[in-house]
């Protein structure tokens, strides 16, 4: 299999654990290697325990590993908590001033060396350099990255970092660790990004111009990206007073004519649900990303879950068409987010995207570079596209259920929009007939929407055992399937990104003929399995569920499947 090694860096919050992971990843990228990183941290700013796991390979990898080759322990707790994970032959570099330690622990005084180089803050660079040296990375690569990174800063900062790198490298000289045999000679440099970045970029690819948000982990990253890019795009990012405001702001912006986004987590989404209904009845396109975390209420604020599926499907009183997507890879997230803007605009409905902490905070290598769409066209009309703008009816009853949408104050067309049940002209009504007509008109959109839904995708579609998954577990399930097959199990999987309108016929086709269906979900009640049964009558035989706030490891799924699910 060539190169496939895993490093875990652990320590306290505030020690820059993440930075080590990112620096290592940047070097690997430079060398043409693939990486996959996960980010585990507590709901605090300093202290406690956090870790970053980076998997490095010469082929695409999209799942964390439960065993590691190299453990970099910035504190004793890390060694204690992760020692078990070390593979035979694995090594642990432990921050320690002691000269000796028991195999496989090698004491390295990271912080002392950092201070020698200029300060505690350089411990990250020391550790990164030490790790790279152990991995046999060609010299100078880290320096190249550091040069790039500190381009804007004072030369002292760069110099200190280079010193730190040198000290780190020196500290591990003589330690043997040949987990990566030969580094590729500068391979193709592929994009690396976190899930959150893929979503933010996807929003721009969907021509998002206004984003409002209220900070909430794990959604905040998406918005911080967009905030940073405001200078470079026609884009305004506004921090709202609360989630209710955020959701209503994007409705206002969309009504006025620009594509708009908000992102939050389940608790914030609760506060947005009334506005989702407003978007539904007023037929205002909006996109909302719900980055899931364990609940209920505050739950585990910095951890992962897939337990808001039914919440987003049924958020808001009464019924109206909406889209629900759950991408499973950065490529899918980028494309799906852009598509969500487009589909929301086409059908004038809310589009809801489900991701989670695991996805948002994980680092991926992309095989192919993401492409900016050549053109993004809005679907609004103006005076010129109408015979008589003064006859404009915002909610004209049409066969498709879609009424041409104009923007206010752009001409003679008066755009009258209403969250009460309304007549075609936008004025409220008490009429039973019009009410039924408007519900039916809105519901008619579902036909078109359903035709735009993509079927589930997967591997080994004819396999006897078929794993079903949705959202962020794609990579883990795919790897689990390969492991199962390597063990001689005839397994395959189907992953659902497009969830609502439910691609029922496609699901039935994809799942037909299986001997055993197993639903893999990060929740405790198998929500997707319930939806599948509700929509198709298909009852899955087993479920593999995890709801402790940590991501799945492929082997957990393998083991559960071997035990016939639970």
């Amino acid at each position, binding site marked *: 299999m060539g190169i496939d090694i895993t490093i875990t860096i652990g320590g306290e919050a505030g020690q820059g654990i993440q930075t080590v992971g990112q620096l290592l990843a940047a070097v690997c990228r430079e060398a043409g290697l693939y990486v996959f990183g996960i980010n585990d941290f507590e709901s605090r700013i300093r202290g406690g325990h956090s870790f970053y796991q980076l998997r490095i390979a010469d082929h695409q990898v999209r799942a964390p590993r439960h065993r590691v080759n190299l453990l970099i322990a910035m504190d004793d707790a890390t060694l204690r908590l992760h020692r078990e994970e070390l593979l035979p032959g694995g090594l642990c570099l432990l921050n320690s001033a002691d000269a000796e330690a028991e195999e496989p622990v090698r004491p390295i005084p990271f912080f002392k060396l950092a201070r020698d180089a200029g300060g505690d803050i350089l411990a990250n660079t020391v550790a990164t350099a030490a790790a790279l040296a152990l991995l046999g990375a060609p010299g100078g690569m880290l320096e190249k990255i550091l040069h790039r990174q500190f381009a804007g800063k004072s030369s002292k900062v760069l110099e200190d970092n280079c010193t730190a790198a040198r000290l780190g490298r020196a500290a591990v000289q003589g330690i043997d660790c040949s987990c990566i045999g030969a580094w590729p000679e500068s391979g193709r440099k592929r*994009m690396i*990004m976190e899930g959150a*970045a893929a979503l933010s*970029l996807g929003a*721009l*690819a969907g*021509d998002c*111009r*206004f984003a*409002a948000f209220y900070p909430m982990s794990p959604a905040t990253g998406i918005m911080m990206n967009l905030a940073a*890019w*405001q*200078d*470079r*795009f*026609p*884009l*305004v990012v*506004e921090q*709202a*007073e609360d989630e*209710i*405001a*955020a959701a*209503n*702001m994007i409705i*206002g*912006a*969309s*009504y*006025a*004519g*620009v594509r708009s986004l908000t992102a939050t987590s389940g608790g914030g989404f609760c506060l947005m649900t*009334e*506005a989702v209904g407003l978007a539904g009845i*007023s037929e205002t396109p909006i996109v909302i990303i719900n980055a899931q975390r364990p609940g209920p209420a505050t739950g585990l604020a910095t951890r992962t879950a897939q337990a808001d599926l039914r919440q987003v499907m049924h958020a808001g009183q009464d019924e109206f068409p909406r889209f629900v997507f759950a991408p499973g890879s950065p490529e899918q997230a980028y494309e799906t987010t852009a598509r969500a803007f487009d589909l929301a605009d086409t059908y004038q409905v809310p589009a809801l995207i489900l991701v989670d902490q695991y996805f948002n905070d994980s680092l991926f290598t*992309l095989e192919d570079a*993401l*492409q*900016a*769409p*050549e*053109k*993004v066209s809005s679907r609004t009309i103006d005076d010129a596209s109408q015979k008589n703008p003064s006859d404009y009816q915002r909610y004209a009853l049409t066969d498709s259920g879609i009424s041409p949408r104009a*923007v*206010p*104050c752009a*001409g*003679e*067309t*008066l*755009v*009258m*929009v*209403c*969250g*009460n049940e309304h007549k075609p002209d*936008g*004025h*409220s009504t008490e009429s039973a007939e019009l009410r039924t007509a408007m519900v039916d008109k809105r519901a008619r959109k579902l036909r078109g929407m359903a035709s735009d839904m993509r079927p589930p995708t997967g591997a080994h579609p004819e396999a006897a055992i078929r794993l079903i998954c949705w959202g962020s577990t794609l990579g883990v399930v795919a790897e689990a399937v390969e492991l199962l097959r390597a063990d001689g199990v005839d397994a395959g999987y189907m992953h659902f990104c497009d969830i609502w309108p439910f691609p029922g016929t496609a699901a039935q086709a994809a799942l037909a003929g299986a001997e055993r269906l197993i639903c893999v979900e990060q929740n405790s009640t198998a929500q997707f399995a319930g939806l599948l049964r509700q929509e198709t009558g298909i009852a899955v035989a087993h479920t593999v569920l995890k709801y402790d706030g940590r991501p799945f490891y492929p082997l957990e799924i393998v083991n559960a499947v071997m035990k016939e699910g639970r």
Partner: protein
Amino acid sequence: MACPKDFDNSVENKWCPGCGNHPILQSIKEALAQLGLAPRDVLIVSGIGQAAKTPHYLNCNFFHGLHGRALPVATGAKAANHSLTILVNSGDGDCYGEGGNHFMNAIRRNLDITLLVHDNKVYGLTKGQASPTSDLRMITRAQPHGVILEPFNPLAVALALKAGFVARGYAADTEHLSMLIQEGVRHRGFSLIDILQPCVSFNQVNTYQWYAERVYDLAKEGHDTSDFMAAMVKARQWGDKIPLGILYRQESPSFTDRIDGLKEGPLTGRAYDPARLHKLLAEF
């Protein structure tokens, strides 16, 4: 020349006969005409309540949204297209009750809109519960022992939040109210006009008669609209004498003035440019 009638439409008015909303509606039409605005130039955003029905009775663009949430909708619309002239019609419950948080934050943003609060000191549409501005001891079906919460003072709170245009109108004085609305729309930044509005169906305390005996025009008293403390004193006056007019006025850059990215013009007028995204993608 624009004329109030331009804003008429044929929608059946659902307010009670004698309701203070009728003269408010008239004042709005007059103010808009006086400002030289045509229906196509005007966007009204409203929440839910009797007051919030106002845009249906005006020929113009409108967004009639959720109870309490007019201001965020207006904020988003303004951010998308800051060339819009936006008025918000809200009720005392809508704006100071359910929407209290947005009221404070629209002021903090100095959002360039004109907020008209039809302040009838009662929840009209839901049949007469106390509102945040109900006088102490007012008896309602929901408050059979009388209101025990200190009334919300919108003018004092707006001042405390550094609002740049703080005024009080009275429904029955349409000429004065029309003047206030015009000044509010002209003011660059957030303008609050709290409008004393008799509700003939549910408020038997603050009636036309009650107001007639109490209101007076600040302007005629030589009130200095640039004096914050004087404004605060007037904002706290209630009971025997109730001041009308502009309490405080002070311009400063508005929300959209302060957003660097909007200097190039409204977001609605900009174009998607693949080159920009291409460049950003290349950094990953």
